[in-house]
């Protein structure tokens, strides 16, 4: 019995060290969910799309287009650091590389049309605050991508 207690006492410093090590180690960064939505903005009448309810009035105020059509969307969960590709439809895709998630989600974004890179940027996104990419003429309107990190 006495030998057993001695053994436990001997292990205490080791246990304390392990606990302190775990407490002191940096927490693993949580994966980040990134959602991208491809929207065609134009002045040609289009039915209202409920999927755009949360953003349409703001887009209308910022851009001035009358109508916004949902063209495609995809979301992905990315480890930090990590990368993913979001296929938006109509030949467009985003390649995202998240490198850091402290003080915003630092993401390198490449917007492709087929094999052509139309936009290349690095942005530190705030969670749940959309970043808008756009300006590509398409089908009588202009393409807009909303990018949201959560």
């Amino acid at each position: 019995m006495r030998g057993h207690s001695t053994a436990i006492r001997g292990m205490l410093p080791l246990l304390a060290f392990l606990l302190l090590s775990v407490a002191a180690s940096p927490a693993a960064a949580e994966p980040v969910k990134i959602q991208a939505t491809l929207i065609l903005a134009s002045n040609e009448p289009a039915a209202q799309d409920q999927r755009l309810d949360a953003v349409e009035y703001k887009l209308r105020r910022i851009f001035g287009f009358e109508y916004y059509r949902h063209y495609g969307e995809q979301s992905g969960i990315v480890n930090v650091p990590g990368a993913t590709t979001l296929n938006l439809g109509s030949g467009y895709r985003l390649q995202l590389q998240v490198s850091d998630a402290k003080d915003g989600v630092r993401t390198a974004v490449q917007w492709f049309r087929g094999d052509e890179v139309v936009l290349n940027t690095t942005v530190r996104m705030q969670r749940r605050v959309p970043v808008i990419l756009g300006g590509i003429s398409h089908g009588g309107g202009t393409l807009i991508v909303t990018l949201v990190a959560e």
Partner: protein
Amino acid sequence: MNCRDALKWISMDMDGELPERRRARLAEHLAGCATCRAARESWAVAGERFRAREIPGMPTAEAAWADVRRALRQQGAREAPAPWGTRLAWAAATAAVIGVVSFMAVWRGREPVAPEVAAKPATEVEWVETGLPGATPMVYEDAESGWVVIWIVEANGKEKGHAGS
């Protein structure tokens, strides 16, 4: 040394990229060329004024974005293409200026802002480029929503094609 090389070297010198051995040759050329001396003076003054944000008529981000919006509003309208060219040329030029200003603001760190604004973290665009020929990227932050817009102002010809059809 001809004036074309001299102007290139003046630009490099102002950026601190001109090797010492070339600087002596440039000084020699400047000593005998009033035109290049005037160009250097002019560029130096413009650089100082740009750094001090004193360039008269320099568009604000809001003004530049308003012009892009005006151009967008008319997209699809059946209008003569001439105003489009003018508007988009202006938009592209201002976009380039705003792009540079945005880049420099990011590069140098954010401008001092009111405490209540500073307390709220903002989206930051570190850099942006477009692979489309003749297009210019523009970065605009909508003050009301805090949303950042990274916009590609396409080359005039392409935009005109859509606008006029």
